[in-house]
């Protein structure tokens, strides 16, 4: 059953989803989280389906997470990882993906250092395309797992206040998170120095602050972005030392968060830059839960796009 939802073919951006879709993914995620906890964590939901990883950019976490998700759904997977060093820059992207599609595949999970590559791939092929991170644009499955993790701890996010802190300008996680959290009714504040915020925020449903200390006491989620260490060299900030002093979450700042407020991070963390080592161990830091939920969220996304519209219980019955 499709449950009245429009069938989706691709997940390129959080804007491809409406609130009902996100709700459905969260519900599916809950079911799949249960599957993951089984002794043999596997359902035949995507048996016979082939999913290809097309990673033009190094990624360990995201690829492993997708890989685990596909395996638990019994999909076949093919890895077409192309380290940036081995890819001839002159090669046409289109030739590559058309070759892959000719092998008979159902979905391509794409990561690329340039924004928009998954969109272009989706224009060229019939298989489903999932954006696993495109340049500084979006990383929708990360946002979905962030959302799921926050909901699991905080409940309904309507009216929840989320601060996204650090290098927003160059963060695909931030763009997806802004869209996902606001779609579910949360209020988002971007916090960072001006050179690390997008050049224009026209049309963004957010508020902006350059003063982390002034927002700490009012938020339910403190989402810290990974600081790319080359931003110092690029002159975006005077030094990492100064960035840490102004925007790093040290113990004193973490103490000022409200009770129950969550500390999130997409990983991998730079200890001592955006977050101090001793803060990482606090109980309101949910970074490990984010990683754990990532598998179930990606199962939900793969199932939603490739599961021929059947719902989970139906698929389980089939398996029985």
């Amino acid at each position, binding site marked *: 059953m499709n449950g009245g939802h429009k069938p989706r073919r691709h997940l390129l951006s959080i804007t491809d989803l409406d609130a009902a879709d996100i709700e459905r993914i969260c519900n599916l995620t809950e079911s799949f989280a249960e599957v993951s906890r089984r002794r043999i964590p596997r359902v035949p939901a995507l048996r016979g389906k082939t999913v290809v990883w097309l990673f033009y950019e190094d990624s360990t976490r995201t690829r492993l997470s997708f890989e685990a998700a596909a395996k638990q759904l019994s999909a076949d997977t093919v890895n077409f990882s192309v380290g940036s060093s081995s890819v001839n*820059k002159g090669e046409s*992207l289109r030739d590559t993906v058309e070759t892959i599609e000719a092998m008979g595949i159902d979905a391509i999970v794409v990561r690329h250092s340039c924004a928009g590559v998954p969109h272009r791939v989706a224009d060229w092929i019939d298989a489903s395309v999932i954006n696993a991170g495109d*340049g500084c*644009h979006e990383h929708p499955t990360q946002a979905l797992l962030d959302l799921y993790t926050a909901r699991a701890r905080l409940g309904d996010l309507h009216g929840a206040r989320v601060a996204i802190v650090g290098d927003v300008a160059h963060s695909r996680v931030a763009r997806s998170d802004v869209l996902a959290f606001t779609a579910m009714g949360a209020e988002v504040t971007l916090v960072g120095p001006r050179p690390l915020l997008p050049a*224009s925020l026209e049309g963004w449903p957010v508020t902006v602050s350059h003063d982390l200390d002034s927002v700490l006491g009012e938020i339910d989620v403190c989402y810290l972005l990974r600081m790319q260490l080359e931003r110092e060299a690029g002159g975006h900030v005077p030094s990492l030392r100064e960035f840490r002093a102004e925007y790093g979450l040290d113990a004193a700042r973490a103490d000022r968060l409200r009770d129950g407020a969550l500390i999130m991070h997409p990983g991998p963390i730079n200890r001592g830059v955006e977050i101090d080592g001793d803060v990482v161990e606090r109980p309101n830091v949910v970074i490990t839960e984010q990683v754990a939920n990532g598998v179930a969220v990606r199962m939900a996304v793969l199932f939603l796009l490739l599961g021929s519209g059947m719902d989970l219980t139906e698929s389980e019955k089939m398996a029985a």
Partner: protein
Amino acid sequence: MTPRLAAVPRSGSVAIRGGTVVDSNGSRRADVLVGDGRIIAVDAADDASDVTADRVLDASGCLVAPGLVDLHVHLRQPGREDAETIETGARGAALGGFTAVVAMPNTTPTIDCAAVVREVQDLSDGACCDVYPSAAITLGRRGEELAPMAEMARLGVRMFTDDGAGVQSSRVMRRALEYASGLDHLAGGAAVVLAQHCEVEELSEGGCMHEGEWSSRLGLGGQPAEAEELMVMRDIALARLTGSRVHFQHLSTAGSVAMVRAAKQAGLPVTAEATTHHFTLTDSCCADYDTVFKVHPPLRTEADVAAIRAGLSDGTIDAIATDHAPHTSADKEKPFDSAPPGMLGLETALALALTELDLPAEQILALMSWRPAAIAGIDDRHGRPVAPGEPANLCVIDPAAEWTVSGEDMASPSRNTPYEGRRLKGRVRHTLLDAAPVVIDGEAQR
């Protein structure tokens, strides 16, 4: 009294019958007889049925105008003949009504010495339109040492530009302007002009579209309008300092238009062009990451488009250019940040101007024929009045013809038109180069 056309039958003559002549002297109903490279007669008689010539071209309902002049094309030869050649580019130009184009020097090798100028001139022999090579201001367009401008001016080069890049160093640009101002005697009396692609690379680096709402949303690196405007500002100052002419290529921002307007009011020797895409498309076109919309300078905002249109309307901008920039599909199918910038323009420019600009045809023709001809120093052959004895470089335009743009149908081996599928009004029916019909009824004859 002008002789009746019938009275001057000549071998190889062509009569253009039934049209309205439009040139820098205004418009009037007239038939035109051409032959031996020149206009033989212009006959205003209403009853032209007795016109005889070896060939008669129907111009009923059409404008008969001096051939169009494009100050800015990339013909890719030598070096990237898979994207375009001088032959195919000139054919596209003729189909678009152009009888003259100025070819940019960013070929491989760069047009920065006499040998490459000669090669381009040789390859242009017999092409569907006159191809005037421009040459680099600096060796290899690196912005460091001046190219041998005198040597190239002696061969007929009138325009120098590092197009694709601006001359970053103020010192180098100052010297280039000073040096060029002493070259007019080599150019047969026509003025030599330096044309600048205005872009301060320190600000534009890493940007592949206009910096603003859309680049921020799409996660693509942006080039702020100020990257262009700072160099426009600097070069206006250098024009004041040196007294030399500066031509601003492809202006794309409201700020640039305002500065050029003020500079002209101050009497400084500056001219400017704008491309068809900068008055018809905005940065929102990049929303689907389609690299056909990637171009330098980038597509800007609606406010910038409005400013460009106003500049065209009030004469701040002297000319419409195409910045015709063919690229192979393989190149354009790269990711947005690494795909080459540029779009086809020759076959759509006139129709876009007629369709999109709220200007009388005569003003559009001024922007596309006689004014650019004067800037390029080729107004001895192009943009001339339609009058007996003048060179017969003409185009015949059907302003009412509607058609649908298709990259597939264009002369270029490349397909990167951003207007695919768009309905336009106004089409070139015939083009004549030195009295020879190179386009008849929209079909290239060479």
